[in-house]
């Protein structure tokens, strides 16, 4: 059985290789090949899952060692996989959602002449992501970690001819690199502390080292997680990442890659459990991001950016949960999965809308679309209900548990975290309702299509002539089917997982679990959540449902304006990092040229000058030569005599 694990990664990897090296002859069939291999990966995953269910809870973990990777004295890095319940969950999510989005892209990218390459990149991403969750040691995980970074770089910048896309891609990679720094330092610390960085040995021998070391490792891991999962302070890249094609946003920047940070933290749970400080920091980062993302989400008029903000905020929930320790890990993963469903669904819906609206992304130019694209409306609506946590739908189950756990943390921090989570729920309800209303309700605010080049983020995938009003239509089957499937997931997954805590029990062997007891009782928390939900929806309806939405955004309050600019984080980066960096490099270039090099050239020049002066002595007059000889002799004699004298 365990020999199948490698195939999970191999299948999409093969696809990537074939599609990228295959050349034009694959243009016709390439996308189907890619989709097929993704499906194969999912199939294998399903088989392994079935097999796993057949075993006892404790001996479900599978292990496969391929070969010894970097054998150096005292340093063993193997290419080896570990498939336990946690990895399994991810495998199914990644390959499942992945397959659906491949399918969706077949239709979505139909008109792009580089579709083959797009699918190659998607497969590459799947392979890297699966490697990430299947690795049995941190170094191999690091490989997958950077692999998904590469894939996301390639896909964000897929429309490279757009400077904005290229810049966004570069930004994403760089910010992630900062996170990767954290990961590599963490690995080095593990190596010097434990002499290895394989999950088993490291996590089992946590007890034998000082808490300080563990805190350091934990914080470095957190840094990595922040980079990958767009948590404050490394969140700035996610918004720009929406430059990529919408399926990419759905798969990578909503469902899977951005959740890798959560995986890392949960996977390293033992380390965090042993270091409360690090754990608290994790929770705080989660809480902060949760609000940050939500606020940003409220202000964006670009539908994808709004969803990106919400993604940020939802991952905030997961990180918060992961920061709560054993009482939260399971729920973090559970929310991760449900979020995978409904957020992917929402993004696909958004893509479908843009597809219909000449790639318009500004929600202020939508409106009243529910009649024109019923399927999209239905699936999007279900996703919406799920994310705001409408009782009974997936989001409700997972989010509510997280809020409970937050309160259950106990003490003032428990109250604060819980309160924040609750507030977040309200804001979520608000901005998602806003999106919903602006897109599907109200009157039409459609605008004639701009021509592809001038539009800031026009996706030239779809063909449309400039200057004409959009004529919305339902998307083709290849696009709607995945949306429907995901919609099912976003409706039922949560409930299914929560049936007598099946999901928690499933994960328990890996993450360990203990029941949290909120000071005010679970029922009260749930009630509070529902109230917050209703409040959020109500305010949104009052603002966008009752009165018409202006086509041009009003100036808005200071907070709004700041939120539109991602709360000024980019401006800060620009001033401090970019400008500062430019100045630094420019001055260094100067130093190198005039100082370091100047010394060298200066020496040469001075020798030349000395030479020029000395050569004047050679003035061509025989008698002056005689003088020098005479003087020389005198000195010679004097010196000799002196020597004897001394």
């Amino acid at each position, binding site marked *: 059985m365990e020999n199948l694990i490698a195939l999970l990664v191999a299948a999409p990897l093969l696809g990537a290789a074939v599609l990228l090296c295959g050349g034009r002859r694959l243009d016709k069939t390439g996308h189907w090949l890619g989709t097929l291999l993704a499906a194969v990966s999912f199939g294998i995953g399903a088989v392994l899952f079935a097999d796993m269910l057949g075993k006892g809870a404790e001996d479900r973990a599978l292990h496969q060692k391929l070969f010894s990777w970097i054998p150096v004295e005292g340093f063993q890095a193997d290419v080896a996989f570990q498939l336990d319940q946690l990895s399994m969950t991810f495998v199914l999510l990644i390959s499942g959602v992945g397959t659906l989005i491949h399918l969706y892209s077949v239709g979505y990218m139909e008109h792009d002449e580089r579709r083959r390459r797009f699918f190659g990149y998607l497969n590459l991403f799947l392979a890297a992501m699966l490697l990430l969750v299947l690795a049995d040691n941190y170094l191999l995980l690091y490989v997958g970690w950077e692999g998904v970074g590469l894939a996301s770089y390639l896909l964000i910048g897929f429309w490279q001819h757009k400077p904005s896309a290229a810049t966004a891609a570069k930004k994403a990679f760089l910010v992630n690199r900062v996170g990767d720094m954290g990961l590599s330092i963490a690995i080095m610390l593990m190596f010097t502390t434990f002499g290895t960085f394989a999950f088993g040995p490291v996590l089992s021998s946590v007890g034998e080292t000082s808490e300080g070391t563990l805190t350091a490792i934990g914080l470095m891991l957190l840094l990595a997680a922040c980079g990958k999962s767009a948590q404050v302070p490394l969140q700035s890249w996610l918004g720009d990442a929406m430059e990529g094609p919408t399926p990419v946003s759905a798969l990578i920047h909503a469902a899977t890659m951005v959740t890798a940070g959560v995986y890392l933290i949960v996977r390293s749970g033992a380390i965090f459990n042993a270091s409360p400080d690090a754990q608290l920091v994790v929770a705080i980062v989660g809480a902060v991001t949760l609000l940050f993302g939500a606020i940003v989400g409220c202000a964006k008029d670009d539908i994808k950016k709004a969803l990106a903000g919400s993604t940020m905020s939802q991952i905030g929930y997961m990180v918060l949960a992961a920061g709560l320790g054993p009482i939260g890990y399971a729920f973090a993963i559970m929310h991760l999965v449900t979020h995978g469903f409904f957020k992917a669904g929402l993004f696909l819906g958004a893509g479908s809308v843009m597809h219909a609206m000449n790639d318009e992304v500004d929600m202020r130019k939508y409106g009243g679309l529910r009649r024109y694209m019923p399927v999209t409306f239905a699936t999007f609506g279900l996703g919406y209900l799920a994310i705001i946590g409408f009782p009974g739908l997936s989001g409700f189950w997972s989010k509510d548990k997280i809020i409970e756990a937050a309160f259950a943390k106990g003490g003032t921090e428990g109250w604060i975290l819980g309160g924040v989570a609750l507030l977040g729920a309200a804001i979520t309800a608000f901005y998602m309702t806003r999106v919903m209303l602006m897109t599907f309700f109200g009157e039409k605010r459609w605008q004639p299509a701009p021509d592809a080049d001038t539009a800031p983020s026009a996706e030239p995938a779809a063909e449309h002539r400039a200057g004409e009003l959009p004529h919305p239509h339902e998307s083709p089957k290849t696009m709607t089917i995945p949306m429907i499937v995901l919609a099912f997931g976003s409706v039922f997954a949560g409930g299914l997982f929560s049936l007598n805590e099946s999901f928690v029990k499933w994960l328990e062997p890996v993450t360990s679990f203990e029941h949290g007891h909120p000071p005010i009782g679970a029922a009260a928390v749930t009630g509070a959540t529902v109230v917050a939900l209703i409040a959020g929806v109500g305010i949104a309806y009052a603002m966008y449902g009752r009165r018409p939405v202006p086509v041009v955004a009003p100036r808005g309050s200071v907070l709004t304006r700041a939120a539109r600019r991602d709360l000024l984080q980019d401006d800060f980066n620009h001033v401090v990092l970019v400008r500062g960096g430019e100045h630094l490099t420019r001055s260094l270039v100067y130093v190198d040229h005039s100082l370091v090099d100047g010394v060298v050239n200066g020496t040469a020049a001075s020798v030349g000058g000395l030479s020029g002066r000395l*050569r004047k002595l050679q003035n061509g007059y025989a008698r002056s030569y005689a003088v*020098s000889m005479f003087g020389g*002799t005198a000195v*010679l004699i004097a010196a000799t005599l002196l020597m004897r004298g001394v």
Partner: protein
Amino acid sequence: MSPTAVHGLWTTAADPLDRIPAPHIEYAQLAPTLIVVGAAVIGVLVEAFVPRRARYLTQVFLAFAALASAFAAVVALAGAGYASGKAQIAAMGAIAVDGPALFLQGTVLLASVVAVFTFAERRLDPAAHGNRVDSFAAQAASVPGSESEQAAVKAGFTTTEVFPLALFAIGGMLIFPAANDLLTLFVALEVLSLPLYLLCALARRQRLMSQEAAVKYFLLGAFSSAFLLFGIALLYGYAGSVSYAAIADVVDGTVARMDPALAATMGNDALLLIGGALVLMGLLFKVGAVPFHMWTPDVYQGAPTPVTGFMAAATKVAAFGALLRLLYVVLPGMRWDWRPVMWGVAILTMLAGAVIAVTQTDVKRLLAYSSIAHAGFILAGVIATSKDGVSSVLFYLGAYSFVTIGAFAVVTLVRDAGGEATHLSKWAGLGRRSPLTAAVFAVFLLAFAGIPLTSGFAGKFAVFKAAAEGGAGALVVVGVISSAIAAFFYIRVIVLMFFSEPKPDGPTVAVPSFLTTTTIAVGVAVTVALGLFPQYFLDLAGSASTFVR
């Protein structure tokens, strides 16, 4: 033998005639010198009696034959063991026949052979009025630009006297390093200098500069030899003899028989020190050490290039030989007096030579300064005052002389309307025009620069190693620094030849006869051979590095 007996020959002249003991001269051991000088005399006779047409060939053949047989004699002597075991002092103590002497004589002779080839080269200058000419004045006596000169040129005169003159000079050079008493030293010095003065004046082109060079060389040379002579006088006064051995004894204080008459002067070290310094100065002038070097650039530039090559190589060899013998045989007892002084001279020479050369614009002057820098390097070996020091210097001289002659031979090839185009700007892009010539010159330059796999490196390494072992580490460091500076201007020339675009009115490279070709070929061959496989020659130098006294 005892100091006074050396010149017993003359002191007993007062006795009745029938009892004059004939001086005992070992003709066999002096054969090399005798052959060359004899050939020189014959050469003069040739000038007198052989018709003008036949002179050139006769002279060339004579010179070549003489040098070749002289070299053969040297080899024979060395083979007979005079270089090592049977080393002795010949000609009533006047001349030493030992390793260094024979090695240097051999080097001088070989260098002279190839140098004489360049003397005899007749294909470089365009044939004037149908008769080929060499690089020497048609008629030295005629005023430049005068009718008489034109007439001489028209008549196709050539100064074949250069060959006997060269032979005389070579004779002097053979004696110079072998001289075992100060008088012989002085005479040898003059014998080698006077012909050179004349040779300098005999350039066919740019005769003004040639004559100027001769005048400068002559006046300064005479000036220095006067100092040398005075030094000899003082040493004689100090020791009561001019024989090296005798002086050495007195210096060491191991004098065989204390002559009451000498007691007064022998105590007087001032005589010794001043005299020593003066003699030293005379020799340093010949090797072109700072601050006695200033004649070098001008003379090298003005003299006919073949002569320059000859001087730069052979004279240096001979002079350093004499210097070595003086320092190792006569003055070892006062090492602690002269070593510091020589340190200063060596450092000055290395640095000044390298630094001043950096801004030179004339190839011949450039090479002149580089020869000064090299004199400095050799001095570093001289200072080592060890067997290794001697052998390293011998090796260096051997290697250096061939590189030099080769380099100057290449200079004779690069010509334009005004004769040799010695200004560096004219060498621009030579590598594009005639890659072979440029490549050969580059090899010589790299050897000068001491790049590994050339003889220059082996020599430099030997010398520095000896110096370092002799406790002169500082000298090595200075030497290394100045080699770095020196490298700069050698590289400059290479850049000029290969990396800069050729000028439209650039010089042409004359196609030489086999003579110059041979010279250059030998130069390259020796340079590479000594660079790759120096072992044999190092052994040779090593086995020849003990002085007899």
